[in-house]
């Protein structure tokens, strides 16, 4: 039956429903497990093969040798496209993607995240934790 106001019942029902939208910055939006967000680098596992650097489509990752079998990684979040190809390319699982996605910064220097060799798994630079 063709008539005007077909959606009227639906919209009136919505008056008594919880809104579908949220007050986002105040109510956080959780991402599912396995979401490809900010990368994490574990220095102990890195063997310095630089497969990640070779495959990164955006040249966002740099591995530097800082000592005998010690490597640090610098990830440029402004360049990273979150494809996580580096995670796939790494033969030793030194890289992994975390579900952290709120990476915007006002200060561009904070977008460069360095994972130092001696402080494995902990970021030296404060970077993006808010």
């Amino acid at each position, binding site marked *: 039956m063709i008539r005007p*106001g*077909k959606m009227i019942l639906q*919209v009136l029902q*919505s008056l008594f*429903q919880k*809104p*579908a939208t*949220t*007050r986002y910055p105040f109510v956080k939006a959780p991402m599912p497990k396995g979401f490809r967000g900010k990368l994490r680098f574990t220095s102990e596992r890195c063997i310095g093969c630089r497969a990640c650097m070779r495959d990164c489509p955006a040249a966002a990752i740099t591995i530097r040798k800082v000592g005998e079998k010690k490597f640090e990684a610098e990830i440029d979040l402004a360049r990273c496209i979150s494809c996580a190809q580096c995670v796939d390319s790494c033969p030793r699982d030194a890289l992994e993607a975390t579900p952290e996605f709120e990476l915007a910064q006002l200060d561009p220097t904070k977008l460069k995240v360095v994972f130092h060799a001696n402080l494995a798994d902990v970021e030296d630079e404060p970077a993006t934790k808010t």
Partner: protein
Amino acid sequence: MASALFYILIFPGFLFVSVFGLAAEYIDRKLCAKLQNRVGPPWFQPLADLVKLVAKETVMPVDADLTIFRLMPVVALTAAITALLYIPMWGPQALFSFQGDVIVVLYLLTIPTLTFFLGGWYSRSVFSMIGAARSITQLFAYEIPLFLSILAPALLANTWSLSEMTVFYGQHPRYGLFNFAGFWIALTALLGKLEKVPFDIPEAETEIVAGSFTEYSGRLLAFFRMTINIEMVVGASLLAAVFLPYGLHLGPLVGFVLYLLKVLLVVALLSLSRTVFARLRIDQMIDFCWKYVAPVAFAQLLADLMLKGLLG
């Protein structure tokens, strides 16, 4: 003198009607959001928008006729506010009234549309000019049904004064129900007057950006936005006074609360209709108004005339 200033500036003049206009805008937007299953804006959003606009730079188009461009928003706002002075709010008696004030109110409510036309036309931008032409085309489609539907109850009450009409329908409440069709006609016409979906053709965002208001910015745009809010309140008040004239004799306080509720009811109906329809095309809108709305308005007029004849 002091009381006249109070009437004009504070109540029921500029200050009251501005606050009420912003409140009506908030209710319209919040309700619309709720109907669309959204959270919607916080209560201060209309005020924040207004403050932001007033604080912003007003950009003047190079080719525009600056006198008319600057003058029109002020004329629009003045006309909309003045119209409210003749509408009964807290009792059967409006602040000012005389024989023929119905016509004056309807006329004052037409002025904003004319200013939209002139302001848009003299901005000399193609989007504004198309919007302006659409405004005036649409005016011819909804204005006559609106006049007919408001004048029909006036004929029945045998007066051209809104206050006397309210008194008449207060004495004969059952006659008010008789104008039921007229209420819906007037509501439809009001949608067209306020340029809301499905009749938001003159400011159809996806076609002509913002229609007449495309070139307006800053304070002048704020004036126009206030005008539309106030027009909404005044239009709703007019509908409340003509078609829902109940409870006004119960004293100023009850009458005033009832008046607010009636206006909000009309605003809610406007929001509902703007959520459930798609925008029509200008030719479809004119077709619809002349084929369906105007004949019903005529029928209402004839029915009122016949009832009047029967009653003697």
